[in-house]
């Protein structure tokens, strides 16, 4: 039973994601997580001010249930399906991150410098998380999907728009880590 508490290798995780996409198709739905952000804005009443959010959110209830499930899944795995939270990244990556000031690299699931509860007390950390979230939310709606909607669902259907979006994801990610990280960390 050791494999349950060990991190899943890519050849278990990848097929599992494809299986999840398949299950959603088989219940007449499409795999895509980011549209939930829009639905949540609608529920908060943004539709009264901005037309983009004026739609019947109940049609998206199924997807909110998937999100709720994801929260529960995160709870279950972190409490019962894992013994060692350390993510065994490449030692070269650990060295890079140490040099940038991330001393938790290789010993934690998320950098404690950014995600420990004490991060709430550091204005720079709050700004990093806030700007990161803002870019994710803006970008994903502008691009019409995120990693699940484009990189998995869209590309599986060989859609050119998704291919362009995924190239964009990588350009953005590479620019952030190779050019912007050295400036902010």
């Amino acid at each position, binding site marked *: 039973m050791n494999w349950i508490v060990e991190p899943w290798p890519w050849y278990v995780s990848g097929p599992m994601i494809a299986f999840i996409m*398949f299950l959603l198709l088989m219940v007449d739905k499409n795999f895509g997580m980011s549209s939930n952000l829009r639905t949540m804005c609608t529920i908060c009443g943004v539709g009264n001010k901005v037309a983009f959010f004026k739609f019947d959110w109940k049609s998206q209830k199924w997807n909110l249930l998937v999100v709720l499930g994801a929260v529960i899944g995160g709870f279950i*795995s972190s409490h019962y399906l894992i013994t060692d939270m350390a993510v065994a990244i490449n030692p070269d990556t650990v060295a890079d991150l140490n040099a940038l000031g991330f001393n938790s690299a290789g010993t934690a699931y998320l950098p404690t410098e950014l995600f420990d509860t004490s991060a709430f007390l550091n204005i720079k950390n709050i700004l990093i998380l806030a700007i990161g979230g803002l870019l*994710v939310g803006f970008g994903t709606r502008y691009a019409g999907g995120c990693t699940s909607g484009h990189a998995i669902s869209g590309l599986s259907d060989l859609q050119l728009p998704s291919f362009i979006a995924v190239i964009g994801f990588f350009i953005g990610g590479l620019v952030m880590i190779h050019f912007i990280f050295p400036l902010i960390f």
Partner: protein
Amino acid sequence: MRTLIYLCIGILFGITMFKSEAASWFRIYEMFKFESFHMYGIIGSALLIGIIVVQLIKRFNIKSFYGEKIHFSPKNKSFSRYMFGGIIFGLGWALAGACPGPMFALIGAGFLPIVIVVLFAMLGTILYGVMRDRLPH
């Protein structure tokens, strides 16, 4: 019944995101550094199987569990919205180390500061909704 199905699919998804470490900020950083095959293996194998599954569904006209025709909606043809939107998303993905699926699994795992990421992702979505007509699509 359907409620339970969606919830269970979500639970499976959350567990997969957490256990695959795709929800780890470190794995995203490592991926953009090209220092591990892990994330490429996950996305690549999911995609390879996904392509085969979609092709099989289309070729053999496989019906859903409820007997409906499985519908794939083609995305609108455009370049700028996908490229610009994609780049903006990528910048945020690398900075926050979480995309819209994993960020919810991380809430469940009890990493409280991720709530800031989710709230601002909602704000970013609102910002897009406000600026939509002025952006090239």
